[in-house]
């Protein structure tokens, strides 16, 4: 079976079986940390700017899609202006079933809900840009993520003076 078709089939099985995901998580070779980094949140951080970062493979329709052929995944990232309408976003990710997210991007990347919260005053200001990765990154691509692309996104968020980040998985 071709790799993309096989990946999509597996994604569909995992999406419909939370128990299977749990079994996988217990056995999988996931990076295990013993401590956690910490940045103290000031009481007014929701005044913003607030940014979203997702690993759901979201990107602008015009941007290059994430690489679905490399078995180690794609460690690159996409930046998206926060003013982008939801209809200008798409998803490239064969490792989870995203039919529901295709119909409503807020299922994995709650950009419109964040705009609602800004409009109602629950948060002060949305950041200029949001960022997206593709999950399922392994081996040498994981080294690139940790050593290069994740720090690059952190630096861009700092440049935008972002004060609070919510991350969403796939």
């Amino acid at each position, binding site marked *: 079976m071709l790799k993309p078709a096989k990946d999509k089939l597996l994604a569909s099985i995992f*999406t419909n079986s939370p128990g299977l995901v749990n079994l996988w998580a217990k056995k999988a070779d996931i990076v295990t940390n013993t401590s956690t980094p*910490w940045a103290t949140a000031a009481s007014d951080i929701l005044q913003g700017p607030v940014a979203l970062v997702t690993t759901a493979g979201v990107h602008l329709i015009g941007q290059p899609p994430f690489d679905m052929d490399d078995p180690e995944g794609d460690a690159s990232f996409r930046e998206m202006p926060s003013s982008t309408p939801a209809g200008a976003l798409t998803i490239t990710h064969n490792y989870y079933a995203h039919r*529901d997210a295709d119909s409503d991007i807020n*299922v994995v990347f709650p950009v419109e809900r964040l705009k609602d919260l800004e409009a109602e005053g629950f*948060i002060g200001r949305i950041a200029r840009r949001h960022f997206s990765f593709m999950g399922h990154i392994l081996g040498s691509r994981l080294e690139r993520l940790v050593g290069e692309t994740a720090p690059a996104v952190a630096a861009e968020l700092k440049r935008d003076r972002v004060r609070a*980040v919510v991350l969403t998985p796939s």
Partner: protein
Amino acid sequence: MGLIQRTIEEAGIPTLSISLNRTVTEKVKPPRALLVGYPLGHPLGRPYDKKTQTSLLKEGLTLLRDIRVPGTLVDVSDRYRF
């Protein structure tokens, strides 16, 4: 996702992740996480369920501001039906 979160936090920006799986999250040890227990591909629940999406995002943002203990994982307060 946890590795990216940790990198952003190390850069000095407070972060919170919405998490689908406690086992993975406990291994990665992010600074703060809201555990929702939804199926893969649905961290904010079902499509067009604005009410649940908004509640989850509000809860996550509030926790992001208020959690004071590093590594705190919080189960979502309401068992939103899936």
